[in-house]
């Protein structure tokens, strides 16, 4: 089978529309499938997909940026770097890309968890144009993405504001080369004593990363003292919302650890 090595984004979009070749980011998920006769569209030579830059509101990371590059880049936020440095090991992080981690569609994707909790957006491009959507809307269900034929993930846009303090935990079988059994991220922004933003996300639990803005809204706008008074209701709402799907590790264990981490996040943030 023929593969393609486009040198520009327009060439890649032309090829994607006309050939049906599989977009190849870092290859670390694709190569496990062992398809020696696959037709790949290699994306690493496309300059437009390799840029990390900031504008007034967002840090923009090109889909082809490797985990190593993101972890080393001064513009990338600490919560993202912390999560990325716990992915696999150096020889995988030198290959794996942000776009691939998202496009693989797994609720265990460690970088995607951070994009959920920070309310990041995706820029999707095709020959017809582009659209920018919240990452939460991109994941429709188990391995099901709102990626239209001929579309590529071009960039992730991470808001610059809204997370003065963060909390991140990945639970794996060991430190390196471990897939998440469960992951949790929480962010908070306070002004004086008042919570102006708070978000949580749970990975490797359900078909899609769990992000419940409606539940987190219970704490937003309150002072830390006021938030404490609704803490039990907040935890009860999550206890109902978190329904782990079957996995390699028992549902009961994952649910308990989710709730423990959520409690620890609240304790840490003095709620």
């Amino acid at each position, binding site marked *: 089978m023929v593969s393609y090595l486009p040198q520009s984004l327009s060439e890649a979009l032309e090829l994607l529309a006309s050939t049906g070749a599989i977009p190849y980011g870092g290859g670390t998920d694709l190569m496990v499938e062992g398809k020696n006769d696959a037709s790949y569209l290699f994306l690493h030579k496309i300059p437009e997909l390799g840029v990390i830059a900031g504008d007034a509101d967002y840090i923009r990371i090109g889909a082809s940026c490797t985990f190593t590059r993101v972890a080393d880049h001064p513009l990338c936020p600490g919560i993202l770097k912390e999560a990325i440095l716990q992915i696999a090991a150096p020889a995988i992080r*030198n290959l794996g890309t942000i776009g691939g981690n998202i496009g693989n569609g797994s609720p265990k994707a460690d970088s995607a968890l951070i994009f959920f909790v920070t309310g990041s957006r995706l820029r999707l491009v095709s020959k017809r144009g582009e659209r920018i959507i919240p990452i939460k809307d991109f994941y429709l269900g188990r391995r099901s993405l709102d990626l239209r034929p001929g579309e590529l993930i071009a960039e992730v846009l991470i808001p610059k504001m809204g997370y003065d303090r963060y909390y991140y935990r990945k639970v794996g079988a060991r430190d390196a*080369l471990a897939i998440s059994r469960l992951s949790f991220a929480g962010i908070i922004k306070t002004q004086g004593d008042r919570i102006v933003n708070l978000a949580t996300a749970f990975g490797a639990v359900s078909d899609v990363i769990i992000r419940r803005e409606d539940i987190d809204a219970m704490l937003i706008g309150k002072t830390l003292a006021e938030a404490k008074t609704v803490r039990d209701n907040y935890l009860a709402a999550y206890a109902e919302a978190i329904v782990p799907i079957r996995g390699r590790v028992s549902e009961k264990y994952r649910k308990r650890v989710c709730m423990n981490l959520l409690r620890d996040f609240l304790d840490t943030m003095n709620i």
Partner: protein
Amino acid sequence: MKPETVLNADVRFTLNGKAVAWLGSPAAPLLDVLREGFGNTGVKCGCREGECGACAVILDGELVNSCMVAAGRASGAEIVTIEGYKNTPGFEILDRAFAGAGAVQCGFCTPGMILAAACILRNNPHPTTEEVRKGISGNLCRCTGYNAIVTAILAAAGEGEGKW
């Protein structure tokens, strides 16, 4: 479309300083291309899924697991395997340090470990123990034990100023 865009049974790259062309599938794992296509059997096949690091090689200066790289991804790249790295001053130092520390038992993980060590020391000539352990965290060893390997890499760091 420019001709270099289509990878059709002709992937050209540099292997240990020599220009080569791979005439098989561009989707084949670089691991198989290096071992079977070019006889670089120092690249070991342990797991084929990025879990062990035995097949690690250096691609454009960075450590990668060659089982996780499709041949086409290497188009235009510079690949260094242990067969190429063994002719460098850095290798001589690592070779002595690994022998001195008893850091080679069965030897299956050793080519990947040596290349991982070379990449650690190139980025950071004076690593801490923790940095060495993180640097080899993707390279599994099941018999020698990591302590001897870490000792060897730290010893090489002490000796190898400017050689990486």
